[in-house]
């Protein structure tokens, strides 16, 4: 492996990690606050990607500049959060918070099955591709290796901003503190007048927007086709589980680990590259069952 291949693998890994982190951030936030693993999270990612390609295709055909793709990504992410995320929480999840974990898992799994077909109905099975946003930002050359600025600079930048933003939001803003309080003790939070229902709705929408944003940002870099949601939910679960469920900073680190592991495998052992994230997860969990940053929950008896 020569230096330029090494750099390529490194850049691939970082770009990939950034995307996975954004999706995993939503997943782990929802879990951390609501104790629900949203299996349909992967579908929200896929729908974010599909929506973006459709919108970008439509507006570019109307003669808008390619740079218009960027605001459209944000619009798509918000649409995913509001049109799908909000009703999902309000009409469905709200009914099952008191049920067992496995039952909650089955419910979000059912939603996942439904949304997979919704994608097929709306967008068909043909792959979509639109890399306008990628081309707008052009390329950068680092040590003789040319790479897209979109993947090398913009994606990691957004991931870091989201990580820091989320930390700041949860620790230093009123709404963030309300969310943290509700997470720690729902009943106590309600007793001091926090509307836990609204906190949950808000958190779920934010999580859904992050999934949609991940899809929107991924759309210029990959073909969008059925099945991408299933891949992403398992992958982002691998990230979140490796870090420890609910661990935001940990998710950033494991996303990087898994992203780099995968991209180096692509160049070194291409056959096993898709397996690398799972191998990392299994190895970590063998040693630390609660994830790298999770702490074992001691049951009081």
């Amino acid at each position, binding site marked *: 492996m020569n230096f330029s291949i090494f750099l390529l693998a490194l850049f691939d890994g970082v770009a990939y990690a950034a995307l996975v982190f954004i999706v995993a951030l939503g997943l782990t936030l929802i879990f951390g606050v609501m104790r629900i693993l949203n299996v349909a999270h992967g579908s929200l990612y896929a729908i974010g990607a599909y929506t973006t390609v459709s919108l970008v295709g439509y507006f570019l055909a109307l003669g808008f500049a390619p740079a218009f793709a960027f605001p459209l990504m944000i619009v798509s992410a918000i649409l995913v959060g509001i049109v799908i995320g909000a009703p999902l929480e309000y009409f469905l999840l709200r009914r099952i918070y008191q049920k067992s974990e496995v039952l909650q898992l089955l419910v979000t799994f059912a939603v996942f099955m439904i949304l997979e077909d919704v994608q097929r109905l709306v967008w068909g099975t043909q792959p979509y591709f639109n890399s306008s946003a990628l081309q707008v930002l052009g390329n950068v050359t680092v040590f003789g290796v040319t790479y897209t600025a979109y993947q090398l600079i913009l994606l990691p930048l957004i991931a870091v901003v989201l990580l820091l933003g989320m930390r700041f939001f949860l620790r230093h803003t009123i709404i963030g503190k309300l969310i943290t309080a509700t997470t720690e003790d729902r009943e106590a939070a309600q007793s001091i007048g926090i509307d836990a229902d609204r906190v949950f709705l808000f958190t779920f929408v934010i999580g859904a927007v992050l999934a949609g944003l991940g899809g929107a940002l991924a759309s210029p870099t990959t073909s969008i086709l059925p099945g991408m949601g299933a891949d992403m939910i398992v992958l982002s679960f*691998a990230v979140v589980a490796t870090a420890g469920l609910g661990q935001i900073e940990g998710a950033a680190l494991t996303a990087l680990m898994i992203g780099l592991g995968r991209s180096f495998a692509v160049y070194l052992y291409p056959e096993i590259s898709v397996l690398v994230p799972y191998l990392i997860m299994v190895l970590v969990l063998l040693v630390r069952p609660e994830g790298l940053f999770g702490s074992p929950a001691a049951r009081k008896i």
Partner: protein
Amino acid sequence: MPTRTQSSKPSNKVNARMTSPLSWLWIVGMAVIIAVPFLVPSMQLLVNFALAKGLAVLGVTVLLRAGQVSFGHALYFGIAAYAGAFLMTSMPATDFFVILIVGVLGAIVAGLFVGLFVVRYRGIFFGMLNLAFSMIFWSILEKFYHLTGGADGLRFTRPTVFGQALDHVQFNMVLYYSVLVLMVALGWFTHRWFASPVGQLFQTIKTNETRLEYLGISPKRALLSGYLLSAALCGVGGVMMGMAQGVVTPEYVWWVRSAEMVFIAVLGGAGSVQGAFLGALIYEVVRTYASVYAGDIWQMILGGFLLIIILFAPGGLIGILESAFKRDTTKPSAKTGDRK
């Protein structure tokens, strides 16, 4: 989790079931299934597929009894089918029973390796880690195409039966009645296992692992015992399905297949042995006829139904049947552990 109906007051009248109207329904149902190849030969293959699938669903059902759900049990379905297919492609004309045994052993060995790892987890982690393992195996099948035939899978010819090369019709008969015998035998075994001390210890995982540990039992080992049973059952279903189709593809392991198993288990009545097969039969028949009209939205329909069952009929088909029949009988239904 929707499982046993709590209202059924436990009693020890094991024989109560024998005379209940519901058991007549099972007897009539069995008679119909036995007669299918003669009455409606066009349905034979369909029922064969449904019962093979039912065996796999029974595997998922076992885990539901411990309050666990696996989104990756198609792994064992596929591993057994591929193990059988590998044997057939390397040694054509291998005996049917050898393939069955090798396939199931493959599933059990895989179940042991994955099981030793996943029994450390419950709930979300248990469900998702199983999914991850099935996706790992799926990508192996797709990527190592020189070994596995990739997405096209492996085709193989008919196995021999007791050294006899059978024609298509004869072999299908052997398959049909074998899967029927397996259904009865394994259904009976699983039912007995549920009621046995080891099966009961396994089911306590659902309610109190602390007490289980304080009874001197390792919860992990208790869960592993049921996990191996579930892997073996999925394996039997997979290898029977493989032989019925004459081809195995990565689709055998695909998450959609796992989801289907979970769906049927919940539809039939989570935790019920008969429910697994009843659910599989109904599912397969509806799918065959509905896919003409609703092929594109099949998963959507399944997901919708799953939600409806979970939210409004947590006892599944068996729960509905039992409450329908309970009106006719004053006898209590069988004791809690006795529900097939």
